[in-house]
């Protein structure tokens, strides 16, 4: 559900960036629109895959009965996120972000050693992709937050502060999610995911506030 809501916020931000760019004509807004579009699509894809498989990507790297859909969706989602945040960073001068979800299920004993070995390899691969992707995302997000601080310091604008706050929460959320994965602590991951969602809520607040007519 968090993924779905965050995806909707990301797509809404992409739309407003696209719409406002028709007036303003800024290349940065094009990058922002593209980045949020990618992010929104990735979040919705992930939410859909989780709903269909009735499992989260983290289950895919932890459960023995991993199915290809979890592995594929995890890899695809991570790649989309890295690209999306890379687009932000490129357009913003420097920066980025991402996400996920988690419960932990008890592993089911594998039917055969060969099948179990292949599934384990797939899970390890998915974990490696996820961790590498998250590290890249965190670095990009750090760049975005630094740029956001610079923007706010210069403009002293409440709107810039909202954007900075949103991205800072998303950055913090990803740090915790990565820590949760590496330490296999579901609670930590869940807290990180929730903090990331709060970051998207911050961006939603920014959208609403900036949409009010200002005299």
């Amino acid at each position: 559900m968090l993924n779905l809501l965050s995806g909707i916020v990301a797509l809404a931000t992409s739309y407003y960036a696209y719409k406002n760019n028709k007036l303003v004509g800024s290349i940065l807004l094009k990058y922002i629109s593209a980045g949020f579009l990618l992010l929104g699509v990735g979040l919705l894809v992930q939410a859909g895959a989780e709903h269909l498989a009735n499992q989260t990507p983290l289950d895919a790297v932890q459960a023995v009965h991993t199915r290809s859909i979890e592995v594929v969706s995890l890899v695809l989602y991570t790649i989309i996120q890295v690209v999306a945040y890379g687009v932000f960073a490129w357009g913003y001068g420097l920066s980025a972000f991402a996400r996920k979800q988690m419960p932990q299920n008890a592993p089911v004993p594998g039917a055969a050693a060969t099948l179990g070995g292949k599934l384990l390899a797939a899970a390890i691969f998915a974990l490696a992709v996820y961790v590498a992707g998250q590290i890249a995302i965190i670095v990009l997000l750090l760049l975005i937050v630094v740029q956001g601080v610079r923007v706010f310091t210069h403009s002293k604008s409440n709107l810039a502060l909202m954007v900075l706050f949103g991205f800072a929460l998303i950055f913090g959320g990803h740090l915790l999610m990565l820590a949760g994965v590496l330490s296999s602590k579901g609670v930590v991951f869940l807290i990180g995911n929730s903090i990331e969602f709060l970051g998207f809520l911050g961006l939603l607040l920014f959208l609403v506030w900036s949409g009010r007519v200002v005299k």
Partner: protein
Amino acid sequence: MVALSSERPRSALKIYLDILVTVRDEGNTKPTRILYRANLSHDRLVKYLGELSSKGLIEERQEQDSKYYILTQKGLEFINQVKKAEAFVMGFGLAI
């Protein structure tokens, strides 16, 4: 690196906004008043007033020997759109 708002010269869109806001605030506005409030040279003022009139955002009226401008409904809506866009881009450190 993106240029921050105070480092950039005024864009055409910003000039449009300054002129339209002046006409909105003043009501029936004479060109001289727009010249001072929008901080424009005479040549640029003539140019931009012509553009805004052709786009239907302001209307030119003649009263006795005086010429003045009024804001159209379309111009008012345009101001609102640009103000919203300005608020949005400000969040990302841009200016219109």
